[in-house]
């Protein structure tokens, strides 16, 4: 366990290294929120938007405030490194160490999340408190469910991106598409706007596909859009998708390493 702890601390230190960048990156996340808030306020005060989009005004604002933060918290970014290890033969050193590669990546992932979480936690607390003041139905139960779904969302997103990284075993140029994949999945997970506002087929897809369960689902728990029954079903989907991607990751890893060894790294 101590080696994982070390890796965890290294990730933490890396993230703290550049002072100005660290603060400004945080600050820059606020800008799109301002733009979106302004837009929603305008639309909700000038039309019957609640009926059109299916979100109450307060719900959509809370969504806007929290989605970016949640999206950042669950966000990956290690897939490039996984791919690089496969491509450049960096994997060799993990294959001979008594350290499981997926756990190595997982704990590093968590380590790099800590500074973000330390900044995000008080901000989220303030936002939730303010939302509660404004009359949103935030309760201890919802907060707890939100935190649970957030953790599961991180695990799910890790599993998804771990699989994407492992694609490098088969597709040599796949890393070139990581940027695009990252953006598209952020959108698909509801990290920018809740996609179920568009209704119909889009809403059904969002509810069935795994991506919404990394970001949109946790946020819709806390803003009170989902009832308890819907939350229960959501957790079912979340766990099921984690299971699917974890199994897929293990399967890909086994097949990939065999292939890697055959090719000779």
């Amino acid at each position, binding site marked *: 366990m101590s080696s994982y702890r070390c890796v965890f*601390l290294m990730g*933490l*230190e890396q993230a*703290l*290294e550049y*002072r100005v960048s*660290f603060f400004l990156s945080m600050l820059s996340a606020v800008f799109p929120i301002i733009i979106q808030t302004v837009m929603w306020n305008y639309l909700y005060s000038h039309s019957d938007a609640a009926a059109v989009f299916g979100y109450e005004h307060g719900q959509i604002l809370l969504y806007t405030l929290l989605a970016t933060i949640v999206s950042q918290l669950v966000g990956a970014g290690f897939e490039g490194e996984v791919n690089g290890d496969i491509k450049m033969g960096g994997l060799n050193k993990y294959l001979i160490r008594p350290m499981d590669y997926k756990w190595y990546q997982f704990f590093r992932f968590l380590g790099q999340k800590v500074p973000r979480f330390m900044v995000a936690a008080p901000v989220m607390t303030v936002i939730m408190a303010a939302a509660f003041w404004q009359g949103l139905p935030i309760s201890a139960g919802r907060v707890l469910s939100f935190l649970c779904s957030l953790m599961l969302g991180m695990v799910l997103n890790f599993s998804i991106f771990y699989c994407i990284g492992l694609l490098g075993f088969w597709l040599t140029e796949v890393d070139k598409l990581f940027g695009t994949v990252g953006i598209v999945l952020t959108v698909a997970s509801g990290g920018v706007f809740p996609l179920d506002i568009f209704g119909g087929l889009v809403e059904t897809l969002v509810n069935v596909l795994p991506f919404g369960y990394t970001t949109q689902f946790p946020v819709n728990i806390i803003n009170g859009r989902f009832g308890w029954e819907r939350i229960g079903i959501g957790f079912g989907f979340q766990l099921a998708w984690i299971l699917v991607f974890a199994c897929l990751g293990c399967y890909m890893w086994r097949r990939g390493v065999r292939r890697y060894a055959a090719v000779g790294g």
Partner: protein
Amino acid sequence: MGIIEVEHLKKEFSYYKKATGIKGSLHNLFRRETLTKEAVRDISFSVEKGEMIGFLGPNGAGKTTTLKMLSGILYPTGGRAEVDGFVPWERKNEFKRRISIVMGQKNQLWWDLPASDSFYLNKCIFGVDDGTYRDVVTELSELLDVRDLMSVQVRRLSLGERMKMEILAALIHQPDILFLDEPTIGLDILSQKKIREFLKLYNQQKKTTVIITSHYMADIEALCQRAVIINQGQLVYDGRLGDINRVLGERRLLSVKTSSEVNPAQWEGFGTLRETSAAGAVLEVPQEKVKAILGAILAGLPVEDFTVTEIPIEESIARFYQKEVVAP
């Protein structure tokens, strides 16, 4: 008045101290410690037109910094310099057209395109007319033996070929003064030799003034009549490379072979003992005493053979590097 005049040139840098570990990172987050480094302390020299001089010195001695100040890249902290009638760091376009700089560690060529495209770009940048451009490229590519490589992407060239192209690119506008910073770094012996031969020829034919920095003595020895040795930001020697030993006081190495083993203590009286073995010894002695000492040794010890040699130049230079001596 030389084409380059340098007086009391100084350059200081400040930089941050980086503490290690997580505590250091947190500390750096709020407060940093500033340190100052004197890269060039007080350098003066002058270069005549058409001369080819070499800057020698260990890594971090201040050679490159001096070169950068002379080419206008850096501002000095103190002192003055005049290059071809200009103050370099005023960076007048007219000045820039008269100089050129090649840096062994950097490249100005477009990586994914043939070198000839980069030459053409330099032609446009320097405003060289079509005819001159064609002549220069034809002539230089012939001299550098790279005619067949003109349409190969730079990234496919070997390091040596790339350096030749860098030099060619730097000469498109036919500068009066050429600065070369470690042009042979990392190259194989053959490429080094080729580049040296080219530079020598070019300097002789075009009367271009050349300043070259290197930490390979071979470069300087082959190319330059005059060497400037810089160490820790100070000029420690300026003169012919071959005269270094005279400056340090003429000393000779006396290698003596004996037919039987001699007790090391017996050698001590004759001079500074460099090495000793069962088969003989090497002594360092002042030149004027060579005769007398040799006579004494021949008389007292079972000498089989002997040779008298000068101290190798590398060794003398190394003594400058270690600051054992400073030029008068």
